[in-house]
Every structure is written in structure tokens, then in C-alpha cells.
């Protein structure tokens, strides 16, 4: 078939109109005023997807409130990963040690004091997130470590306590943009992402001064935050395949933390992989988050190993 086509203008998906976003405000005095008020360092860290660093650097209450909000969202996603994995580990491991079962029981509701005395003491005493294991047990020729599956939920609550009012641009910049999603299928995720990018392209085309937005990769930042928000909504509704596809397609810059792939993105991707039945895939995402994800990483690793115990692995030369 011979076809005449205009590349980039024939994509399917819901029709969209340009949406005024925080990106258009980057060149306005309001953004310069934020930087002036809070110092450059805080907003650089927030742009780079490292909200707890941003919180430490922000010089106004409102700047800190915004950073606390973003940090809470990271820990909430990590909490979902850890509690999901801990519950699955307790349920699927027939001969699980009592400590693993206790952790699994606690993971069912992190807001309630656990029955296990060791976990209960931690629950009562902790004032700051502790990434270390709760139990380090000498077993038959190896050391068993078991983490508190609620440590990240607790960290999220601590960040929530630091939140407060945040108005206008300070609450929007380097975050998601308004977008109406379509069906929550794998194909729906592709169509949504294409439509989202088209929406952002239209905004970019209408922008008289795009230099700063381009330097800050603002459209990419908005796309990945929007995709992450949509994916988390989908995960909470049980639509894991949509969430995983959307997040996989939203970023292709390698396994590194960046403005285009912030902490919340990796935490959400880990959750999506886990919810799709692929704890090993979740580990690839958690690895990017470093020591703060040590607990979820070990618990998810145990689950990945458990699910492979009865399998014979396959390997090939590439």
C-alpha cells in the first residue's frame, strides 16, 4: 500500500486542547519570586525528583510544605510496595519463620499496633524512618534479615505531619498537569501517553519563550509526573497492566534518578511491576532508590526468590 502521511499528525487517541500549565509560568515573575523566596537549592532538588533534599533546603514554610507533600507521595508508593510484598511473602511461604509471619500480619494495617512485641516496640518508639532490619537472625549457616514492612508507611505519616497549605504555582510547579485518561488497558496506556505528549506539544508550540522550559526539560517532567499520578490511581483501582505499561513507556533514559525519572516514578514502577506479578522487575526499579529502599528491596527480593524456588531458570547468550 502506498500512503501519503503527515508524520506526527495521524495518531489515535482522545482529542485534546492546549492546557495552560505550570510550564507556561516558568518565565513569569511568580516563578522567579519562588526561587528568590526559597533559594535555588530547594527548587533544584525538587526539580531533580529528590523531595527530602528539597525539604531540607527550602527557606519558606510553603516551600517546605510542597517538598513534604512530594516526599510523602514517594513513601506512600514505597509503603505499598513493601506491605504488598510482605503480605505475599507471609501467605505464599508455607514454612515461613514466625518473624516473617509477624511482619506479614503487621503489613495488613500499618496504622494499628502490631501483636508481635518486637514490632510493637518499634511501632511505639520510632520517631524517624529506620531502613535497617527489625530482626537479624542466625539461621543454619546464613543470616536471616527481616524488615518492618510498615517503616515506609510510618515515614509517609511523618512527612504528612510536615505538610501544610501550599497555594498556586508553588503547589503545581514540577508536578503533573491536568489530563483525562482513557481505558485502563495496555493499549489504553500507550494511547494516553501519546495524547498526553500531544497535549504538551501543543502547549510548547504556543509558548513564546520556550528556552527555560526546554532547559528544565519541563514537558518531560510534566509528562512523567502526570503518568505517575495516573499509574498510581490505576494501581489503587487494581489496574496493574495499565499502570506498568504507562510507566514503562513514560521513560527511556536508563536506570538513574533524574528530573525525568524522579523518586516517585521509580517507587510507582516498582509497585506496578509487583502488582503485575513480577517482583524481580520491581527490584530493577527499587535499585535506583538506593539505601532508602533497602527494606522494600530485601522483602521484594525474598518474594522474587520464593516464587522462583520451584522453577528451573533459563539462560541464553544474547
Amino acid at each position, binding site marked *: 500500500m502506498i500512503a501519503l502521511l503527515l508524520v*506526527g499528525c495521524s495518531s489515535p487517541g482522545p482529542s485534546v486542547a492546549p492546557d495552560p500549565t505550570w510550564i507556561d509560568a516558568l518565565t513569569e515573575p511568580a516563578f522567579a519570586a519562588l526561587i528568590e523566596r526559597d533559594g535555588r537549592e530547594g527548587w533544584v532538588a525538587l526539580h531533580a525528583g529528590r523531595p527530602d533534599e528539597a525539604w531540607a533546603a527550602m527557606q519558606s514554610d510553603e516551600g517546605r510544605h510542597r517538598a513534604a507533600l512530594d516526599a510523602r507521595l514517594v513513601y506512600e508508593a514505597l509503603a505499598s510496595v513493601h506491605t504488598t510484598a510482605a503480605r505475599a511473602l507471609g501467605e505464599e511461604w508455607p514454612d515461613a519463620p514466625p518473624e516473617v509471619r509477624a511482619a506479614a500480619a503487621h503489613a495488613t494495617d500499618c496504622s494499628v499496633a502490631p501483636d508481635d512485641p518486637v514490632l510493637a516496640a518499634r511501632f511505639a518508639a520510632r520517631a524517624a524512618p529506620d531502613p535497617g532490619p527489625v530482626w537479624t537472625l542466625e*539461621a543454619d549457616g546464613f543470616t536471616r534479615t527481616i524488615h518492618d514492612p510498615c517503616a515506609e508507611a510510618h515515614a509517609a505519616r511523618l512527612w504528612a505531619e510536615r505538610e501544610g497549605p501550599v497555594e498556586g504555582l508553588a503547589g503545581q510547579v514540577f508536578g503533573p498537569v491536568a489530563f483525562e485518561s482513557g481505558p485502563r488497558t495496555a493499549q489504553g496506556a500507550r494511547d494516553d501517553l501519546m495524547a498526553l505528549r500531544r497535549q504538551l506539544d501543543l502547549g510548547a508550540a504556543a509558548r513564546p519563550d520556550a528556552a527555560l522550559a526546554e532547559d528544565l526539560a519541563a514537558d518531560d517532567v510534566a509528562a512523567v509526573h502526570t503518568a505517575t499520578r495516573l499509574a498510581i490511581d490505576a494501581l489503587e483501582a487494581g489496574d496493574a497492566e495499565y499502570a506498568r505499561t504507562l510507566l514503562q513507556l513514560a521513560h527511556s533514559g536508563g536506570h538513574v534518578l533524574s528530573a525525568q525519572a524522579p523518586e516517585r516514578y521509580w517507587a510507582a514502577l516498582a509497585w506496578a511491576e509487583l502488582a503485575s506479578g513480577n517482583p524481580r522487575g520491581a527490584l*530493577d526499579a527499587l535499585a535506583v532508590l538506593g539505601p532508602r529502599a533497602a527494606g522494600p528491596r530485601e522483602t521484594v*527480593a*525474598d518474594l522474587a526468590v520464593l516464587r522462583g524456588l520451584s522453577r528451573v531458570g533459563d539462560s*541464553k547468550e544474547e
Partner: protein
Amino acid sequence: MRRLAPLLLVLALPAAGDPLRYAEDRAPGIVNPLFATTMAEARLNELVFASLFTDDRELRSAPAIAESFTVAPDRRSMRVALRRDLKWHDDVPLTARDVVFTIEAMQAEGTASPEASRVQWVRRAIALHDHSLQLDFEAPEIAPEDKLHFKILPAHLFTSTTVERGNAFRTSPVGSGPYRLEKFNEDNSISMRRVGALGPQQVLMREVADKNYQAKLLLYESLEALVRVLPRDLAVLESDRSIDLYPYQTNSWWYVGMNGANPQLTDVRVRRAITLMTDVDALLKPIGTGDRVSGPFVPSSPFYDHAVKPAAYDPDAGARLLTEAGYTFNGREWLGTDGQSLTLKLAAPASMDTAQDVVVNLQSQLGGRGVKVEPEFLPVAEWKKRVWRDRSFDLVLSQWSFDRNEDVYDQFHSTGRRNFTSYANPEVDALLDKARTTTDPQEKKATLRQVHAKIAEDAPMVFLFTLDSYAAMSARVKDVVVHPFYFFTWVEGWRLE
């Protein structure tokens, strides 16, 4: 940020029913699952052949050729009922005899299948009727269906369970999978046609060794899928809105293997010296981005021992180790006690342009330190013969890809079928055996972390890096979900528009 390209093009677009065309760096050397050693072969086998069980979309074992199964109360045997509506692509009914034949052929010493370890746990397979069979196990099994994912072969096309690599089946394979292999084409491509009602009507595998050219073919709509895109080619694909990029991490790592049967390489000091003289970051930089690895697992693996750091580039320390090992540097090269130069032949696959970049770079690095490297770029058939069968090499550059179980037994156990570097360490053997039999995931994790550390210490390979890699897919291919290892497992859910 992806940008709209207001570019008016006249292109030849495939009509409905045209094939889904995908590229491999090198065409499968053999289309027979008994002898599959490469990812290209595994991906093709996924299209042409079927297994008793397969992964569902949540990676749980789901019946494929099997219809149902029961495991005996003592968990030492199982009975499997087969679907009754299945036929081979030559219209012969698929029966329990085919399953029994496949297991026996994989196990036959004379076959020497690199897949043999996948059925070592089966003590005996018996066809009870046309559509039911019994499997007896060597030891109790928790979930035997998880191990029955190997591809089934048609017994009626073989005369014996001892199958030779050169068996005619390799050129006229008959499967029972979603696609029938129609033709090996003169340009090394392979044409396949859909058997059932779901999935793209045709699939065409094209061999394109040049990764950059692969990307261009996708951009100009002469391909619909690339299974592996290197980071250096990503930018050009990212800018095209008609292409989607999927992470395709298969737990892969690159290495320079050292032949343990070579007298020059039996001394661990020599192997460590070569490791220290290799600037791995400089090998990685020209071909992409990724992470260094310090042993046989990737850093995100449950089995990676993070206390083991990748070897630092320290050629002076390497030189000291060679001196300790009895070598003398004469200003140009290292001479052994017998006066022979330390000269090593390095084998690499001819069809991988990326491998050629690494080889030339490595030759320059080691040559600059007096270790002569003579590269040999081997075609697929020669590679299988020299490396896999005859183990005739000093150094070998290659890349292992693992499924999510990351089982390195075959690569590093002294009896492993993929251990062509002849690595042998009784302690590692014992740990690998323990890792295979334990039912405690935390014990397995700890045991394989020990394996990681011990193998790193023995330095049977220069462990290089894991590359960030992506699969690229035309937006014309709809409803795509890619299997994390076999890629095409769920192809019947895809549509080509």
C-alpha cells in the same frame, strides 16, 4: 522531549495481513529447542513451539499444551492431561508420546542438549494414553508445573531420542506454537504464518547485524519491532512519536571469559592481572550506559553481594601479579618461564558490531600493557563449534541473559552444560547444589550471594557490565505486552494495524 516532526513522507506501508517484521542481530543458528543457546533462538522458539505450561500475564504457570494436572500426595509424581484439540503444524495430532520423547531426548547423553538440566528432576516419563502422561520425580516437587515450560518436539519426525545437532529438523522445523515456520529466505530472514485466529497474521524475522541500521529500518517503517535497542540509538527513536520504547531487561551481563583449560590461565594471579588491566568503564562508554557488575549477578539481583565491588582499573597492580606469577616484562611483552609470550586469542561473535567495538578497545588496552590479544570474529556456526563444543579459545567475549530466576548453575557448576570456560570450584559446586534444593528463599538468597563473592574472587571472567536496553515497537502494533525474557510469549494478544 519528543517533538512533532512536520515531515511529509511517501512511504510503503504494509497492508493488513502483512507481516510483523522484527530484527535480530544474528539469525538463529539452529531452529531446534534441544539446542537453543541464544536469545534469538529462544525468541523464535517462542513463536514456533509450545510448552506444557507457559507464563500467564501475571507470570504464573498456566496450562498451554497441558489441560490439567494432579500431583501425587507424596509429591513425587504427577499426571498431566493434554488438550485433545492440538496438532503439529504438519497436521499430525500432538500426543503424550511427543512429551515423553522430548524429555528423553533432552536427557539423552548422546544428544548433549544444553537444555538437559531443565529436565534433570524427572526420573521417568510415561505416556498413559494419547492425551495423558505420568512424570515421576527424582525428589518431591512443590510446584512441578513451574518446571514444565520447555518446548515440546514432534516425536514422529525423529528416529531416536539421541538427536544430533545436524538433524534435518533444524532446516524444516515443525512446532505446535502460534506460528508455523514457512520459509528460510535467502537473505537469512525467516517467514512465519499464524496458525490460530489471534495475533498478527505473519511474522518475519530479519537478520540485521548493524544496530544503527536496525533503528533506521524501524524509523522508515521497514520493521515493526527491534528487540534490543542500545542507548546510543535511543535518541533518534525517542524523537519519533510513531515508536514506543519498552524496557527489555533480561538480567544480562557482558563478560570476557577465560578458558580454565588453558595452562596460561589456570593461575588465578594471571586471571586477576587481566581483570586489573581492563578499563571496563572505557569499554562501556562507547557502546552505551549501564552498571558495572562485580560477579555473575546484576546489581539489582537478589543474589548480588554488594560488599563485592567491581575491580578497580589498576594496570600496575596487574603487572605486579604477572611478575608474581613468573612472567617477565621485556618492555614490549610479557614472557613466561618457558620464554613464550603471553598471547591470548579472543573469540567474539562476528555479527555483533557492538562486540567488535569492545574487542578492539580491549585489544588496545591489554596490548598497551604487554598482553597480546589476537581477536577472532566467529560466525554463528563456528562460534557454536569452537566455543560451545570444542572449547577452543583463550578468551571469549559474550553476554549472558537470564530469566527472572537468574540460575547460574549451568555457567559455573563444574558439571554445568554452559560452563565452557571450564570453571571448577568444589565450594561453589556445593553452594550451587544447595541453592537448587533449599526451600527457604532467604537461605537461597544468602547462598547465592556467597556464590557471587567466591566466583568474583576466583576471577574466571572479567565481569564487565549490564547495559540499559530497550525494545522498540511501531505504534502500528497494538495491545503489546512484552514478556520480560521470551518477548513473544503473549504475541497472540497483539494486533497489527
